[in-house]
C-alpha cells in the first residue's frame, strides 16, 4: 500500500450525546472519543464518507503530514515566559 500523501485533520467540536447510536459509532470508528480531540486519517473515500456522516460535529482540514500524539502535545505546551539570566553565585557579566 502506498504512503498516503494527504491527510484529513479531524477535530471533534460538538458532542454526540443525544444523537443516534450510529453517529457516535462513526465517531468511535474515527477515534474521536472526546470533544476537541484531533485525529489524522488519510484522504480516502472511506474516511470522506465517515466525515460526511458527522460533518456537523467536526472541523476538517486537509494537510500534508499527520502529527503524532507526542508532537501535538509538544505544540500544546505554552512558552515558559522566562529564562535564567544569571545563576546564583556566578560572576556578573562585565565586572
Amino acid at each position: 500500500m502506498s504512503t498516503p500523501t494527504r491527510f484529513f485533520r479531524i477535530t471533534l467540536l460538538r458532542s454526540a450525546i443525544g444523537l443516534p447510536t450510529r453517529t457516535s459509532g462513526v465517531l468511535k470508528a474515527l477515534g474521536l472519543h472526546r470533544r476537541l480531540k484531533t485525529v489524522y486519517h488519510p484522504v480516502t473515500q472511506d474516511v470522506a464518507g465517515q466525515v460526511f456522516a458527522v460533518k456537523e460535529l467536526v472541523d476538517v482540514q486537509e494537510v500534508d503530514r499527520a502529527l503524532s500524539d507526542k508532537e501535538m502535545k509538544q505544540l500544546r505546551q505554552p512558552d515558559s515566559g522566562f529564562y535564567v539570566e544569571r545563576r546564583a553565585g556566578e560572576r556578573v557579566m562585565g565586572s
Partner: protein
Amino acid sequence: MLSRNVKRALLESRWPLPPTFLLPWAATLTTVSHATEASNIPPPLVNAGQHVSPERLERRHDQTSSNTPPAAAPTLQPANTSTPPALSESVRTLLPVLAAQGPHYITAHLYDRPYLLTAGDTVRLPFHMKNVEPGDVLRLNRASVLGSREYTLKAAAATPALKSPSMSSSLVLDETTGSLESHSMVMPEPGVSSSGSKIMPPHFVPHIAAGKVSYLDERLFVCRAVIMGVESEPLRVKEKTKRRQRKIKKVKSKHRYTILRVKEVRLRGPVSAAAREMQSGLAHKDYGIPSPPGHWSCAVRVSLSHIFAMPGPSYALKIFVMRTS
C-alpha cells in the same frame, strides 16, 4: 509507518533559529518568518504562523472616556529581515512619554498565565519552578501589557476562532461563456492563505487558538526577577472512602511554591536619552545582554503563542524596534 519520515524531517530541519541566548529551550518550536510556499511548509513542530498587529499606545483618562484612536497597523514583512520594521505612529511618538512616566507596571506571562507586576513586588507562583535555586535571576520576556499611570502599551489581540478556514471562494473563468461570474469553492492549500499575502499555520488547532494572548516585542522592555526561595503549604490530608465502607484511605498533600521578587521593570527601545537616564537611575545595573550603542538587529519574531491564531485580516506581529544611531 511514518515514524522514519517524521524523524528524518525533524532531524534535518533547516529552518533558522533565533539567537539562542534570547530564547528558552521551548523556542526550538518557533521559527523565524520567511516566505513559504505550499511545498516549503516546515515540520509541524516548528511554528509557521505570522501575524500583524498594531502595538498601540492608549491614553487612559480617569475622568473622560475619550481615547486616542488606534493607529494604523504596521505592514507585514514576512521574509525581509534586513529592512527596519515600522512602528505605528502612536507608539513612536508616545513611547518616550511612557518611558518618562515612572513607575511602570507589566503584565508578564509565565507559561501563558498573566501576572501583574511592578518593581519590588513579591510573587508567590502557583507552582514549583524546577532547576532554579534561590539567587538565580530570571529574565521575563513574555508580556502583554506595559504601562504607567496614564499610558499603556499593548499588543493587539489576534482574533480567536473555532473553525479552520476550510473554504475560500475564487473566481473561475467559465470556459464556455468566458465570464467571471461563476464561483467555485475550493479548499486552500495548507500553508498558503486565501488572501495570498498572509501565511497560515500548517495546522490549525481550534481549542488552543481560543485562549491565546498576543505579546509585546521583547526588545521593548526589560523585566527581571530573582528567586527568593520556595514556600510550602500546610500539610493537608484528604480522606478517601465510600459509603458503608470502613476502610479510610488518607492521602497527604504538601505542595511547594516558588517565590520571586521583581527587581526591575523598565522600557527599552526608541526612548529619549533623558527618559533613559531617569530609568537607569532607578533600575539596578543591567546584567542582561549588552546592547550595542547605536545598532539594533532587526528581525521579525514569531512566537509559538501565535501559531494557532485565526488567519484573517489581523495577525499579531511582534516587531523589533529599529533605533537609528
